């Protein structure tokens, strides 16, 4: 069954304020659409349940990247090409730049937006492990005002998040304080181009005299939504990177991940690969830590 354009409505109020008014007037009725790389696929296949859509593409307030001394503030509809072309993201947030290069093709990267990637809430979202490793915050906006939450608290269940029906993501705040951290990001998929992750792991850690003083681990495809690996972090914090620490971190990881069998992979494979990625990061940490 193909999608029928005549049975869906799409409006373009133009101004951000007008979009927020519409969302507030009829909460839950209007579905925002930006780059369309997710919703238009569902539409073409005839499985887009949303009948009323409101356009966010082309609203200038949302497609911004602002740099402050503390952070890079990325507007919700900045595209992955926008991220790849940004000098400060390339220099200060290399994991995010790398994740942006993973998204689909060039044509997808020019349309897919960072906010869309998060709201869509795929467990395999390419941008999520980097944002979790960088301790990003999400800023929401509605006619009631703005609020910020840690990104690690944004996803609440499979494809569910804590946005209220009248809210949009306004921006994503990514701190710039990771220059001294050892950083890691790796995605394992079927092939390099256009593949969805079987497993991805992002990490940042700060070593001080051989001891882990700060660590953040973010994972894709290990649970129903992108997950910060808090138990694994706890097993590593204040520890030196020894074979015993690596072993206990591995145990914590296997205990807290909840992988599934699906068309892309199996739970067992995901467990193995996730543990291997963690090993790889910890070995990098030990190697680079001993050099500093």
């Amino acid at each position, binding site marked *: 069954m193909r999608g029928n354009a005549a049975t869906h*409505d799409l409006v373009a109020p133009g101004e951000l304020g007008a979009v927020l008014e519409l969302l507030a007037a009829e909460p839950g009725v209007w579905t925002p659409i930006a780059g369309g790389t997710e919703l238009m696929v569902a*539409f073409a296949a005839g499985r887009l349940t949303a009948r009323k859509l409101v356009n966010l593409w082309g609203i200038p307030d949302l497609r911004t990247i602002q740099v402050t001394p503390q952070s890079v503030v990325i507007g919700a509809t900045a595209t992955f090409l926008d991220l790849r072309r940004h000098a400060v993201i390339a220099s200060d947030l290399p994991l995010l730049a790398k994740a942006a290069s*993973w998204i689909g093709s060039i044509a997808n990267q020019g349309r897919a937006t960072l906010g869309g990637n998060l709201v869509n809430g795929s467990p395999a979202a390419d941008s999520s492990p980097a944002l979790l490793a960088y301790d990003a915050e999400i800023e929401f906006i509605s006619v009631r005002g703005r609020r910020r939450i840690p990104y690690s608290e944004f996803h609440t269940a499979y494809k569910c998040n804590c946005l209220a029906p009248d809210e949009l993501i306004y921006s994503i705040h990514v701190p710039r304080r990771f220059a001294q951290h050892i950083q890691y990001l790796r995605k394992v998929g079927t092939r390099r181009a256009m593949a969805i992750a079987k497993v991805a792991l992002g990490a940042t850690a700060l070593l001080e005299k051989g001891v882990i003083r700060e660590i953040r681990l973010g994972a894709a495809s290990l649970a129903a939504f992108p997950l910060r690996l808090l138990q694994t972090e706890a097993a590593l914090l204040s520890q030196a990177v020894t074979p015993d620490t690596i072993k206990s971190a591995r145990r914590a990881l296997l205990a807290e991940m909840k992988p599934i069998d699906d068309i892309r992979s199996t739970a067992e494979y995901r467990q193995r690969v996730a543990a291997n990625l963690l090993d790889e990061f910890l070995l990098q940490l030990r190697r680079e830590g001993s050099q500093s």
Partner: protein
Amino acid sequence: MSKGEDATSSERSPAITFNVNGEVRIANVPPMKRLLDVLREDLHLTGTKEGCGEGECGSCSVRMNGELVNSCLIPVLQAEGADIQTVEGLALDGELHPLQRAFLEHGGAQCGICTPGMLMAAAQLLEQDPHPGIVQIREALAGNLCRCTGFIRIFESVAAAVNPENAHLATESTSGHLRDAREEGPHAR
């Protein structure tokens, strides 16, 4: 497909104005109609092809406001006021674009379904980087699938368009570069 006769009100088929290959065009179509379908059904520009219809194959690639896009993923309302270039806009005054000539000369086209999208993706690359290497060519075309050529002749065609006076050298040496590129991993995804 409906051409507006299913629309329940005039609001559902607003006049959408955009510029296609340098000409102002107006389409009275539902705002959610895909740009791909508007180009093919309403403007009769059938050079743009539909492959997968889900943004994976690149057959429907066109350029919109200077960026490469999959026209199957664009509700036409989002093209309001945009500058769009389709494969029909590549040739100028009956003169083929250098990419089109190179595809003809180097076997870059077989069945032809992927060809318009390949050409648009390659045109986008050349506009941003007039002298790409094989690694850049491969990344730029990574979102365009071909089931005939095995891709090598397409990459060679683009390489030849970049450097026409060395076309045969480009063809011979490109194969070697392709092997190297494959080992290095041309695009980190």
